[in-house]
């Protein structure tokens, strides 16, 4: 097995977690703190929102690093989709595959790319319901992350690594919301 074939296999969770910690360590060493959701605020600011609202009146030069980091993330996605593509779709639990049937998803066929990344039979532009959920979900993430002053990277990884009680409570909130959506709302939304 050559090195590319090795990387192409899905990674073990322990190795994955260690690599995410490496990203945190690198960004910290470079003098910045890990956080992706602030990029949405930057884009508001670039779009001129600062003229209307002082919340978006930020020094963008201080945020260049984050914008190139996020652009790098997109390129990392392109590399992941091309050079480092996994041979098999994501191996989720059998119980999860079963419960997906209740939502109307046939796994892994419900991802048209065969990767097991996104249920494209819901999330495609021909499906009005999927478009509405994409808009709703994106809005909640954008609103909640700014209100909570951070997302998964800022709170669950960086904040918890700095032993922040605020981050711990915010992450508990992430799970309250996620559990309500997954167990109560999605079964209604997706089968309407």
């Amino acid at each position, binding site marked *: 097995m050559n090195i590319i074939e090795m990387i192409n296999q899905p*990674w073990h*969770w322990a190795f*994955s*977690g260690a690599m*995410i*910690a490496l*990203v945190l360590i690198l960004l*910290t*060493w*470079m*003098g*910045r703190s890990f956080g992706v*959701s602030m990029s*949405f605020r930057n884009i508001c600011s670039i779009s001129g*929102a600062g003229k209307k*609202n002082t*919340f978006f009146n930020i*020094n963008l*030069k201080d945020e*260049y690093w*984050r914008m190139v*980091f996020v652009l*790098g993330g*997109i*390129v*990392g996605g392109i590399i*992941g989709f091309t050079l480092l593509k996994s041979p098999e779709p*994501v191996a*989720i639990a059998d119980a*999860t595959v079963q419960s997906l049937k209740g939502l109307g998803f046939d796994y892994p066929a419900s991802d048209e*790319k065969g990767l*097991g990344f*996104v*249920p494209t039979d819901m999330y495609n532009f021909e499906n009005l319901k999927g478009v509405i959920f*994409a*808009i709703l*979900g*994106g*809005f909640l*993430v*954008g*609103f909640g*992350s700014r*209100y*909570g002053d951070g997302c998964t990277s800022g709170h669950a*990884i960086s*904040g*918890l*690594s*700095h*032993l*922040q009680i605020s981050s711990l*409570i*915010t992450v508990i909130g992430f799970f*309250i919301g*996620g*559990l309500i*959506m*997954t*167990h109560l709302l999605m079964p209604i939304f997706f089968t309407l």
Partner: protein
Amino acid sequence: MNQNTEKLPRLIAFFAVGILFGIIMTKSEAISWFRIYEMFRFESFHMFGIIGTAVVIGAIAMFLMKKSNVKTLRDTAVSYTPMSFSLPRHIIAGTIFGLGWALVGSCPGPMYILLGHGYWMFALVILSAILGTYTYGVIKDKLPH
């Protein structure tokens, strides 16, 4: 020397770390809507293992970097500015975020990475997240903080 703006070589380094992040999140499968769904159903240890390992190693690393007075490349000490504690804010904001996270199966980092994979719907998700952020900025003074 300007403390606030990185020059081009440093920005290229941040770009490279971003690429690394995109690859890690892809190969760890943390960008998968199905992995997030599975996590919220507690049907696999995978996502908990990833986040748990990252936090344990991250906490040890942050502790050691603070303890040894490491200077960052911007000539600053390793520190963290805590946000002011507010139980209602953390819980409400976290819950709103979590509702969206589970629905689109993606937090902000993976949204960009999935766009790189050619899941074009995430362009709309990101646009909507920007609108959500803007809306927060407009109504924030009316919210409990």
